[in-house]
């Protein structure tokens, strides 16, 4: 394909991505190094018959002028990045010097909002992803062993947790887990503690969110593995059988090698999707016990005062996190591309 033709074909897409993905990133980076202007405060003398008192008031005109002159705000460099709500360099080094042991240091760090969000996001990502792979694989193997008449309806039901809107899927579970809901009641009954509430405890909230994550994503892994199992080389399997391979050996030496590339694919997609975990925290109303990086940004953006600079700094840090997560994949894709050209 000629360069010129290629250019015209990809122009609309590239324009859309440039304007609404690339430029916003630039805008986010800009916003993260500027803070809103502080209001200009002037002192005025209020004099009446009892004497003069000094009081301060906001000089609206001067503030407005300043805002017009520098609409981005005042340049603060990396101040926002290192402040208490983000990387908290000062607090971390203080905690490092003052705390007696590792445990105390960690609990100090976990009180800082950014690290709290980061800790949950990473835990969620690296707990949910392997569990999704395992559960998805087990479902795929099980579905593969039932008569083909039943497979259609089974796949239909299995797809539901994934297709459902994340906010809504987690709401449905949240209502059931509520202490007055059916699962909540069941858990209270099993634990023998009628006052047990999943919402009130931090560890239980984390578990709940991760259970939701696995429930939501397992169908994806299942479908991909199921498709993979359909294309397992039958001849190889039969010859392994004839050579006296046991069932376990067949799985180990024929089926698993066939599924390895699929596992990489699922793991990649899952890492990307789990790193952005956000909706369940809104639905579960869990922000007191667990926040993720995405939720942290959402929280800054919403509400009465929109903390744009703070949200922007968190966004930049999140993007850096995504980049780190993706590096191995990018290197691999680059190698594959080099191979496919030759």
């Amino acid at each position, binding site marked *: 394909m000629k360069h010129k*033709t290629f250019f015209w*074909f990809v122009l*609309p897409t590239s324009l*859309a*991505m440039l304007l*609404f*993905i690339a430029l*916003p*990133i*630039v*805008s*986010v980076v800009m*916003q993260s190094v500027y803070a809103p202007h502080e209001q200009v405060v002037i002192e005025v003398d209020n004099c009446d018959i009892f004497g003069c008192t000094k009081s301060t008031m906001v000089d609206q005109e001067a503030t407005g002028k300043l805002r017009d002159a520098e*609409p981005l705000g005042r340049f603060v460099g990396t101040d926002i990045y290192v402040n208490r709500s983000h990387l908290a360099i000062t607090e971390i080094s203080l905690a490092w010097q003052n705390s007696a042991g590792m445990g105390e240091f960690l609990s100090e760090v976990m009180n800082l909002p950014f690290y709290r969000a980061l800790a949950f996001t990473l835990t969620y990502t690296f707990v949910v992803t392997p569990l999704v792979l395992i559960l998805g694989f*087990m*479902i795929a*193997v099980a*579905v593969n*062993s039932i008569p083909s008449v039943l497979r259609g309806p*089974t*796949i*239909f*039901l*299995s*797809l539901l947790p994934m*297709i459902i*809107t994340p906010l*809504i899927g987690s*709401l*449905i579970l949240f*209502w059931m887990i509520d202490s*007055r809901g059916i699962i909540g009641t069941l858990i209270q009954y099993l634990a023998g503690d009628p006052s047990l509430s999943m919402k009130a405890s931090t560890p239980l909230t984390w578990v709940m969110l991760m259970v939701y994550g696995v429930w939501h994503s397992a169908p*994806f892994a299942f479908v*991909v593995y*199921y*498709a*993979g199992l359909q294309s397992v080389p*039958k001849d190889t*399997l*039969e010859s392994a059988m004839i050579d006296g391979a046991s069932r376990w050996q067949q799985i180990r030496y024929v089926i698993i090698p066939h599924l390895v590339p*699929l596992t990489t*694919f699922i793991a990649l997609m899952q890492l990307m999707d789990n790193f*952005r975990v*956000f*909706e369940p925290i*809104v639905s579960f109303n869990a922000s007191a016990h667990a926040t993720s990086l*995405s939720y942290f*940004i*959402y929280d800054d*953006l919403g509400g009465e005062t*929109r903390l744009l600079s703070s949200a922007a700094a*968190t*966004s930049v840090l999140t*993007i850096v996190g995504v*980049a780190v*997560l*993706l590096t191995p994949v*990018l290197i691999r894709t*680059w190698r594959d*591309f080099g191979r496919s050209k030759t």
Partner: protein
Amino acid sequence: MSTSVAERRSPLLKLFAWSFLLLWLVLAAFPFLWTFWGSFKVEGDFFSKADWMWAIIGHLTEAETGSTFTGAGYEGAWIQEEFWKSALNTLIVVVCVVTISLTIGTLAGYALSRSTFNYAFWLLIIALIFRAMPPITLVSGYLLPFYEWNLWGKLPTAIIVLVAINQPFTLWMLTSFFKNIPKDLDESAMVDGCTHFQAFRHVIIPVMWPGVITTGLFSLLLAYNDFAVTAMILSKENQTMVPKIASFLGTTQTKGNVMFAVASVVSVTAPLFVLVMFFQRQIVSGLTAGAVKG
């Protein structure tokens, strides 16, 4: 498919597989069934402190409304809280997003699948990086310019943003579909004197529909399911269904109004059910497209 010798299993293993599958199916489907059934009850039954059986038999529902089923939740959500407006907004957003992103996505996907230049590869890689970024990180970049230019809160703004966020995924999927359409087809058309665009129009377009429909389904799901973008960018009057439900939760926790949220949750889920029922095959093929072939 005939069962080969290799697929024979011991009865114990079979029993385990069946019971595991049954357990999974209950886990996957029961919450939906439960919520659907419960949406026709009053709050006292759906969240029953006294006896969980009430959610099934509707004890309080009968006492309060005279019948074991009530449509009060739906009436409250759709009419009183004007959920129909959000449904209409969602319809507009979804239709526009799918149409626009498929139109520009097919062009680019086709070009990418036919190009072996390095920059084609880099475009795909950039798209992959964009795909990995949480949409909410972009939202903080949108807000300031959108306020400034008075674009915030309007449906077309949300549509364009969703199209852009959709593009990376659409590109990857369509590129992999187009790679499966033999190059000989359009090359022979060009030998016969077509320009590249004519070859695309007359030769590729007629055979691309399965891939495009599958990609369209996923664009649709992305637009329909989005919360991060629509919640932050749309004003209250222009809200789509998902942010509307979230706002139900924040403001109307008074008695009875939780059932509005339950009813609207069921209303949002219903179209997705229908979608999976009719397009199960396409969804499955779409999910595996990237994996099995690539």
